[in-house]
């Protein structure tokens, strides 16, 4: 038959029980909205992490001194001072695809100017650092290779450091005392925001690594070496050449562990996005549970409805309804509840995600996939949880159904 009239019949029945229909649909609305909002938050976090990883620079290889396992003793990255300035020079000289190298030393220390002081991170780098990190200056000029060679007392500062020390004054040309050594501020970096780990990347002082080693941190070894390769295709070859070069320079015999660790940006990105993927999956799964609970709500109300309307079903059968007409009617009722709930849920979910984005400053990203998935799942839930009650109705014996009190 007669699908059109059956739709009519189903909608009439839903309209007869407005309050109940709304409450039943509410279970699905909440479920779908939760899935969309949660996956939106997860995807937003993932996108943010990806952007931050990308801000490390393009085609970057990081070489840390020390190894995760070194002679059976596990040290952290940068834990043992095995990287020498000469290693960086050798990489620059001997690995063909390398376009830029920055020797890095770090230190946390107090800096001061006038009557202001501030605890910040000192990064000693080469002049290539700003290219590798793709981190342009907002104001002033970076230090030069000449500054690096002469270990000049110049530095570039991040926006946070600038504000904390100089307030609204222009820091360019001013003196910044780092461990009582006066440095001249030559430039201010553009704002980069929080890192993937929640560290303020703008709370920084960048100076020539030679100056940092000589005047601030002391020591003769590098924490790590940042290397940039011209093309993504050459990454793995360059990485392999660097490993061979350093093993040779450090006299590491075949079969023994490296005393350094090489990571490329892609590996770091993969690890970070894997974490956010797990988070997104977890959020989505929790929200998915509420969708299933919503589905059980539909089944429950449909079962109540079938029992309550036993006489109605009997009457319909008496006037000529086939079993499948009754089945279709109740299935359509269930699917209507779940898919109308799904559509409203999508709207509510998007609104919730936007609200969170605005009020909590969490980045959210609504994906079309999650909308389509949430809607199809809600329609499927209608079919799945509606089928049993509908079949129960369709199999009623008309004589008993007519007599039912």
């Amino acid at each position, binding site marked *: 038959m007669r699908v059109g009239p*059956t739709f009519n019949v189903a909608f009439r029945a839903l309209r007869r029980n407005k309050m109940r229909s709304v409450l039943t649909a509410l279970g699905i609305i909440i479920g779908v909205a939760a899935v969309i909002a949660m996956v939106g938050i997860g995807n937003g976090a993932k996108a943010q992490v990806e952007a931050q990883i990308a801000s490390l620079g393009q085609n970057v290889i990081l070489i840390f001194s020390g190894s995760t396992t070194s002679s059976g003793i596990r040290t952290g990255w940068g834990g043992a001072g095995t990287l020498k300035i000469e290693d960086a020079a050798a990489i620059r000289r001997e690995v063909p695809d390398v376009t830029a190298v920055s020797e890095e030393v770090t230190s946390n220390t107090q800096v001061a100017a006038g009557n202001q002081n501030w605890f910040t991170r000192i990064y000693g780098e080469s002049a290539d650092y700003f290219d590798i990190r793709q981190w342009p200056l907002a104001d002033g000029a970076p230090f030069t290779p000449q500054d690096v060679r002469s270990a000049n007392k110049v530095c570039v500062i991040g926006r946070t450091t600038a504000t904390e020390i100089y307030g609204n004054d222009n820091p360019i040309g001013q003196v910044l005392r780092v461990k009582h050594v006066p440095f001249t501020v030559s430039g201010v970096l553009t704002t980069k925001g929080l890192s993937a780990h929640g560290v303020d990347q703008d709370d920084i002082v960048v100076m020539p690594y030679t100056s940092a080693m000589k005047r601030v941190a002391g020591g003769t070894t590098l924490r790590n070496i940042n290397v940039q390769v011209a093309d993504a295709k050459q990454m793995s070859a360059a990485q392999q050449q660097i490993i061979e070069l350093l093993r040779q320079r450090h006299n590491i015999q075949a079969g023994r562990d490296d005393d350094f660790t090489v990571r490329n940006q892609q590996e770091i990105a993969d690890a970070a996005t894997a974490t956010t993927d797990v988070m997104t999956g977890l959020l989505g799964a929790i929200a998915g549970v509420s969708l299933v609970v919503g589905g059980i709500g539909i089944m429950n109300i449909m079962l109540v409805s079938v029992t309550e309307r036993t006489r109605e079903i009997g009457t319909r059968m*008496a006037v000529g309804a*086939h079993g499948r007409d009754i089945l279709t009617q109740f299935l359509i009722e269930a699917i209507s509840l779940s898919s109308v709930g799904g559509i409203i849920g999508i709207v509510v979910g998007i609104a919730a995600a936007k609200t969170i984005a605005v009020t909590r400053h969490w980045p959210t990203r609504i994906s079309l996939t999650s909308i389509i998935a949430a809607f199809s799942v809600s329609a499927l839930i209608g079919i799945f949880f509606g089928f049993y009650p509908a079949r129960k109705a369709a199999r009623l014996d008309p*004589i008993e159904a007519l007599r039912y009190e």
Partner: protein
Amino acid sequence: MNNGAVVKLVDVHKTYRTGEMEVHAVRGVSLEIRRGEFVALMGASGSGKSTLMNILGCLDRPTTGQYILDAADVSRLDRDQLAGIRNRKLGFVFQSFNLLPRTSARENVELPLLYGAHRLTNAQLREKADQVLASVGLGGREDHHPSQLSGGEQQRVAIARALINDPELVLADEPTGNLDSRTSVEIMEIFQQLNERRITILMVTHEQEIASYARRNVLMRDGIVRQDFAVTQRLEAAMELERLARSTTEP
């Protein structure tokens, strides 16, 4: 229009099995109902009249025997085929009306059309339903819900629903069981009017007085037909109503 039998039962038996027990509810009924008859089927509870009614209404099948409805054997049809027969050839009136709640009189009357083979537009459905409602005296009440109608009016909606597909046979199961005596007579008046239009009616009742509005009474006991006779002193509902009106105005 053929003048032969609308209903023909040939040695119909119905046996239920409840656990080890076999219940012989109907034990050999042969019955013929011609077009235009108005039959009252009577009997005490347990006499088998409800079982026979279910068989006649194509809600149930006989265990043995034949049921010919409108010249077609319907005794061996399956569930869906029986549903089709009920839709096209039968009209049901129940003791408790069985109207859909919170649904207008018009929509209740349209119900059998929704399950029919004919595809009608909403306007056609509406026109047909309103016409039948007017014929049972409910013109102007099409949009009322059952809760806004009196018992007699609800039963008239049910009668309109039974008539909407021009059935071969109207089956009424204790149609006055839930109504007061005056309203009962009003319903009998409608049945008699329908019968004047040569609509065949089979009515189950246990009230002798109600049975007297029919043309023929069939009395069942212990699963068989004990008596089958034409009503000699037939009551005319219209006259009864006049008499009732007089008696209420007199002191």
